[in-house]
């Protein structure tokens, strides 16, 4: 039997007939969501259709040459670059956020300055970061086009992203947890690391995912700092190219469009995988 608290089609139709404006708005919002979903599906579908047939074993060869245009070195570089940048920026950003939320007094001038700076940094186009990286890390510090220079440049780029999200995550941890902990005679350090931080992990993770998204998708800041050599790096000072840069290089050369699509498929799968993984991780942490 149908539940009586569900409106039947007839009842709904009657309600909408008496107010055409609601009907119009309903159609409008439904259409908007439909277009959004379709655009996304079309994009993913298009890349998949164009790319999957070109995913040949030779694309995963250990070395890159003009015969096989292997994406494996770029894949490895992407992973290395991501890990390295997160390693540099993550702790810095999280500790900075902890200071701003848990230690600094409210209305402190320094806090305001740090916040404004962070917000400004997120708004700067990545090519500017690239230029800075080129002038400072590559030239002044004489690191050359290298994994290290690229990772440091990206680290500066994602620093404010992780910091802001961590700040928000810490801010949304209820004060009652802090009171409870202080009330038992715990100091601030213990309160922050044992009680507050674990509750904020899902929020911090979402910031890290956002950062990974930026790293994986970055090209402009990397071409000037990490270079475009398609090889598995032998040291931190080797020049490297990530998947995005690889894609850019392939399609700009105009000879390997099919392989560029295949690269896009791999990139897409990586991003989806990271999203899924971090979602699962956050759920697990939340459950304790």
């Amino acid at each position, binding site marked *: 039997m149908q539940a009586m608290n569900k409106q039947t089609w007839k009842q709904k139709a009657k309600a909408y007939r008496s107010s055409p404006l609601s009907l119009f708005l309903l159609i409008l919002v439904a259409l908007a969501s439909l277009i959004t979903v379709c655009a996304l599906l079309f994009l993913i579908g298009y890349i998949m259709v164009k790319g999957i047939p070109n995913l040949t074993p030779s694309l995963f060869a250990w070395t890159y040459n003009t015969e096989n245009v292997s994406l494996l070195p770029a894949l490895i570089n992407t992973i290395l670059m991501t890990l390295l940048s997160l390693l540099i920026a993550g702790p810095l950003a999280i500790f900075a956020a902890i200071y701003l939320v848990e230690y600094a*007094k409210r209305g402190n001038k320094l806090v305001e300055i740090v916040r404004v700076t962070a917000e400004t940094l997120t708004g700067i186009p990545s090519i500017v970061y690239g230029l800075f990286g080129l002038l400072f890390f590559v030239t002044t510090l004489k690191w050359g086009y290298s994994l290290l220079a690229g990772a440091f440049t990206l680290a500066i780029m994602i620093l404010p992203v992780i910091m802001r999200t961590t700040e928000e995550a810490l801010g949304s941890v209820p004060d009652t*947890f802090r*009171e409870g902990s202080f009330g038992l*005679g*715990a100091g601030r350090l213990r309160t922050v690391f044992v*009680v507050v931080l674990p509750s904020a992990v899902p929020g911090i993770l979402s910031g890290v995912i956002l950062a990974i998204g930026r790293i994986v998708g970055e090209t402009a800041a990397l071409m000037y700092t990490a270079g475009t050599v398609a090889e598995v790096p032998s040291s931190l000072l080797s020049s490297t190219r990530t998947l995005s840069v690889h894609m850019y290089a392939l399609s700009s050369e105009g000879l390997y469009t099919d392989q560029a699509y295949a690269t896009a498929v791999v990139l897409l799968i990586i991003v989806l995988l990271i999203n899924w993984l971090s979602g699962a991780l956050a759920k697990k942490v939340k459950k304790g």
Partner: protein
Amino acid sequence: MDKFTISNLDLYYDDFHALKDVNLNLPPNEITAFIGPSGCGKSTLLKSLNRMNDLVEGCRITGKVLLDGEDIYGDMNVNHLRKRVGMVFQKPNPFPMSIYDNIAYGPRTHGIHSRAKLDDIVEKSLRDAAIWEEVKDRLKLSALGMSGGQQQRLCIARALAVEPEVLLMDEPTSALDPISTSKIEDLAIELKKDYTIIMVTHNMQQAARISDKTVFFLLGEVIEYGETEQVFSVPNNKKTEDYITGRFG
């Protein structure tokens, strides 16, 4: 000797004069109830007794508060003070961890890490808070899955786990149903044998039922302080009588 000796205590939130020249001597092993209308300063005074007001920005305190004759605003380590003077809050605030870890948090904070010792403390605290039988089979489960009344008793157990001398209770039953409330009240009466209990309450009957002494506050001032029986039957002050009989507040 009195547990707490409060003399000439004034407290300001920025420009607001929240407590005015408070002088009180609170005896040990009794339940003292703080009553009065909202905003009269009773919770503020309670939080001054374990220095939780230190966390409030713009809060300024003058005067003296002695715990067993020791000035708590003097050389005393704040964390040590809060270990001696435990607190139970208005809304149950268990940490988002297991029941066991909630109780063990305090002892671990103060340096106890032996598994056997912690097991003992957890069991004893939960027994003292009259909740052991209900949770003994799910110590490893999250404390957030308990009912409100259970959570509040868990918070009491958590406070007891660090072996305090005083238990401050800030309207501990205001968010609870009548059955949970009566359990907490029974518990408070049981606990006063070993602890000094100071309880803020909005509930006149509760103050009359369980407390030994009652302090009536109005607009930041102590209007009346005496044996609960006397305060409720023959108050010295007209304002106390008006408040207790429900003419305002």
